């Protein structure tokens, strides 16, 4: 389209404003972690690193971070196994109800978190509590894994659809057993898709608030739950500011890894 000079300039300005709106809030979080004041009034009266050292010794935030990492690793492990199994079934077999299976996988992430949350909560309390198992880290992992399956599934199934089964068949024609063909041919083909899926699953779990609220037992506090609980307490504001800034900085890691895993995995979209 032959845009006039004015139209091009207008679009440049519009896009520039758009990107400013996207990034100013994140930059503000970084700057605000250096704010000596407890209020968020702008501009800050000065800059100090004092709250960073205070936050580093905050046991509540540190414990919550640790719980989040454990929940994320547990949920990712389960999602990797289940998501990969479904992906192989859907991509390599034809069976009745195949489309339904792909639909059910997406459902936990498509429905509002509060619906998934209270459904799992009442199921846990009616089934597990009579068995003497209360809500705890275990139920958080189960809840997170349920909606993490889809990202692993999406990545692996996309990879399997692009690589036809003829490689495995060739390996078997050359005498490899089913397991040998999987280990030497199939697994290397899907490895980076598995990594991408795991990265997304961990990020989803690490960020989840709603499902955690309903599946965590007393005393189990993930980092998002800790932030949510302390966000409105003026006394805790400086520490929350630092934790928020740390999370903004940490989000660079998955972006870098996702880029390294290259464009052919579905990391470009979180769903």
């Amino acid at each position, binding site marked *: 389209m*032959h845009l006039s000079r004015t139209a091009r300039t207008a679009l440049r300005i519009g896009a520039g404003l*758009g990107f400013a709106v996207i990034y100013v809030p994140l930059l503000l979080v970084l700057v605000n972690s250096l704010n000596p004041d407890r209020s968020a009034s702008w501009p800050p009266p000065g800059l100090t690193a004092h709250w960073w050292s205070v936050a580093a010794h905050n046991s509540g935030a540190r414990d919550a971070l640790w719980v989040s990492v454990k929940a994320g690793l547990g949920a990712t492990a389960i999602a990797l196994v289940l998501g990969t199994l479904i992906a192989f079934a859907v991509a390599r077999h034809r069976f009745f109800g195949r489309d339904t299976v792909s639909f059910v996988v997406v459902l936990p992430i498509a*429905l509002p978190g509060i619906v998934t949350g*209270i459904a799992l909560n009442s199921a846990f309390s009616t089934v597990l509590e009579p068995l003497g198992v209360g809500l705890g880290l275990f139920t958080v992992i189960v809840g997170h*894994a349920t909606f993490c399956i889809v990202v692993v599934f999406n990545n692996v199934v996309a990879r399997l659809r692009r690589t036809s089964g003829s490689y495995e068949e060739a390996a078997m024609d050359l005498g490899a057993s089913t397991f040998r063909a999987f280990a030497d041919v199939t697994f290397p083909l899907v490895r980076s898709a598995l990594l991408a899926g795991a990265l997304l699953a961990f990020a989803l779990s690490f960020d989840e608030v709603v499902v955690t609220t309903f599946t965590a037992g007393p005393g189990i506090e993930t980092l998002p739950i800790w*932030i949510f609980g302390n966000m409105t307490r003026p006394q805790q504001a400086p520490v929350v500011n630092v934790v928020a800034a740390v*999370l903004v900085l940490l989000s660079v890691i998955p972006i870098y890894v996702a880029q390294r895993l290259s464009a052919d995995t579905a990391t470009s979209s979180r769903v």
Partner: protein
Amino acid sequence: MTTHEPTAAGRGTVRRLAGTLHRRPRLRLALLLTAPLLWLAVLYLGSLAVLFVSAFWTTDSFTSQVVKVWSTDNFHALFTTPVFRQVILRSVGVALAVTVLCAVIAFPVAFYTARVARPRWRPLLVVAILTPLWASYLVKVYAWRLILSEGGLADWILAPFGLSGPGYGLPATVLTLTYLWLPYMILPVHTALEQLPANLLDASADLGARPGRTFRSVVLPLVLPSVAAGSVFTFSLSLGDYITVQIVGGKTQLIGNLVYSNIELNLPMAAALGTVPVAVIVLYLLAIRRTGALNSL
């Protein structure tokens, strides 16, 4: 050789197992699907089914105990209680407003990244659009809580114009949700604009259309399915959200807050309220499917 060599007997068993699996694809399929289907169908769909059945139960108003007697009272209350009706309408309105705002903001940004920026820069710009998706949801909402606080960044920017920020409330909620889900709209629009064939635009210009006319008659119809695809995310994510409104919404209530506040005392009512966003999202998906947008998701 340092690798562990299995014994001859062990190797034979493995080999037989591999042979059996190879000859019987149905068995292979069953082994693949059993564990995931137990998890998703029994645990997840089972819990959902029980929840929706419980929407037809009632609660004893004295003991707060769930009474398992079939009744449609909860759904009746849903449509007749003024508060519920008001909140449901408000929630749908917020979701629609967020979707429209996202589309309006996404267009110029995506147009720039897809067709105006130098091709060399475009992949980098896509990364720049995606980056905020990796930042924590709560941190992004918290950022807007800081911006909109009294004497915060919004007040500071608007002060020279004699204005002040919107403070916490319904507008703040719409603004924050728009910010949260914007990348989900920019990305499909960017992809659609990037794939727009240049010769169609040239043909339109050759036939005498000015840029405005080309935009309305050629670009918009071709990009609209992608806007619809993006709107699935912006609409359904906004409709289910109740955390953002708690942080920046002041006293504003959305459907999720009603569900949340009913869980302890009246779970059947909470379940009935929970069916509302699900039903609205399903209706929205059915409406969108007519545009063919779901195929481009």
